[in-house]
């Protein structure tokens, strides 16, 4: 029953948001594309002309590229496995009747609200320091030699710190999904004598599948671009230079803007592949 009048009003109301987002998307994106086809070194000669796809091939064939892809995949994959598996288990536990459930929830969610630079530095110094860190004390207590976390187990350390930050997110979303499960179905299965493991694989897990997919996709998008955690801990050394960090170094540290922009285009394509799947799920939930 929307009239012509209300239609144009609607367009007017949407205009500011649409225009600023369109600008935010198109202007920098066009510039990145433009730079990616240029030899552009602001500190060493500036704009040195068009180079075609040179930056794209050079970015991929540089010796830093494959290790950075590998580091990215290990970090994203490691964090996803840890947060999803532990998240499901923790959500199942938190769904059980207990005393002080609200307080436990608050404790579990807290790390999500800690700013990335704080969690990076607190873990680096107060936990992972090989001399004064708590983990070193713990290792010594059990008679083991303390680990030099951030230099000898650097990727694992970054995965640990990042998992600690994202586990609350996974848990909270999975818990929300579990709580929307039809209890009667579960009780019926219990009465029919289905053991807990069967109830989990045949009722709970299928019910959780969409939530798990959403957790994986959203986390992947955020994890592909983690920055501060690496910036304050290893600054990209010891094999922790991810694709994001490599591009950052090319653009701002070595000021090779053309090369960095080509890398940026790769990162944008990669993120879009993930985003397409997420959009499908979100789009479906809009229809219901």
């Amino acid at each position, binding site marked *: 029953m*929307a009239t012509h009048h209300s239609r144009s*009003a*609607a*367009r*007017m*109301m*949407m205009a*500011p*948001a*649409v225009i*600023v987002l369109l600008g*935010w998307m198109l*202007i*920098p*994106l066009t*510039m*990145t594309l433009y*730079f990616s086809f240029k030899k552009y070194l602001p500190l060493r000669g500036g704009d040195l002309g068009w180079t075609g796809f040179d930056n794209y091939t050079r970015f991929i064939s540089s010796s830093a590229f494959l290790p950075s892809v590998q580091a990215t995949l290990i970090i994203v994959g490691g964090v996803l496995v840890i947060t999803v598996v532990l998240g499901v288990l923790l959500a199942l*536990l938190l769904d*059980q*009747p*207990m005393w*002080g*459930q609200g307080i*436990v*929830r*608050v404790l579990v*969610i*807290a790390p999500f*609200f*800690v*700013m*990335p*630079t*704080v969690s*990076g*530095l*607190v873990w680096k110094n*107060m936990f992972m320091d090989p001399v*004064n860190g708590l983990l070193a004390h713990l290792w010594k207590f059990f008679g083991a030699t303390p680990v030099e976390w951030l230099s000898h187990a650097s990727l694992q350390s970054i995965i640990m710190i990042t998992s600690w930050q994202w586990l609350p997110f996974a848990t*909270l979303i999975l818990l929300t999904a579990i709580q*929307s499960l039809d*209890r009667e179905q579960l009780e019926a299965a219990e009465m029919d004598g289905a053991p807990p493991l069967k109830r989990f694989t045949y009722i709970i897990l299928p019910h959780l599948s*969409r939530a798990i997919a*959403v957790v994986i996709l959203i986390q992947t998008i955020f994890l592909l*671009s983690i*920055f*501060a955690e690496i910036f304050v801990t290893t600054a990209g050394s010891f094999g922790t230079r991810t694709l994001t960090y490599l591009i*950052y170094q090319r*653009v*701002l540290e070595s000021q090779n803007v053309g090369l*960095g922009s080509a890398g*940026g285009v790769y990162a*944008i394509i990669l*993120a*879009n592949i993930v985003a397409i799947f997420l*959009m499908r799920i*979100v789009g479906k*939930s*809009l229809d219901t």
Partner: protein
Amino acid sequence: MARSVTTQRKVFNTLLAWLIGLLIFFPILWTILTSFKTEAQAINDPPLFLFFDWTLENYAVVQDRSNYTRYLWNSVIIAIGSTILGVLIAIPAAWSMAFIPSRRTKDILLWMLSTKMLPAVGVLYPIYLLFIQLKLLDSRLGLTIILMLINLPIIVWMLYTYFREIPGEILEAARMDGAGLKDEILHVLTPMAIPGIASTVLLNVILAWNEAFWTLNLTAAKAAPLTAFIASYSSPEGLFYAKLSAASTMAIAPILILGWFSQKQLVRGLTFGAVK
């Protein structure tokens, strides 16, 4: 639907959940505890848990030496400013999509969301360059605008899901009673929309407060918020655990408190309605 659970099992659940909860919370607790130690106590071997001479010295030192208040102000202004600006732009858009939906509404919503997926590093240099030319580098205004832009899709989306829950019949009833568009918005919609708007503001202040890509790369001394202030501790001089802890505690305390109120909104705001 009483689920019969033996007391024994409930005790077991409680103990296990508390143990895990405290384990996850421990790094935060340890940071808070360390902030009340002297530097020597902070690196004591064995570590000191509760029995040390509690002191507030570190808080005073952090404040004196590094002008903590300025960073705090920058964080407050940027986080709140970007959220308010975003909400002002988003309210009309979300309102019209929720109450005057068209065939394209869904596409527009999804497109807005897709801008959120753009990796920041991919547009780092263009933004850096634009900021230099517009003299926005290291300014609160520049960061406020950037953070507004990166959070705008979430703000529109959250408001949209809240507005959609307002029953359309109420609007029709108001129209029947002869209410104009202005009355409709002012007296019917606004009171019903306020809780949703408040939740949206809350979550987005938190997200903006903790944002640590643009705040690190686009600020230097003047407009740096707390994220950048804490990052300056990554190349410390001498003993600094207690001071780092005090600075960290001050940086996360306000948001931890706000965060505890926003648990429910977190799911809605970050899954875009895909998980209910």
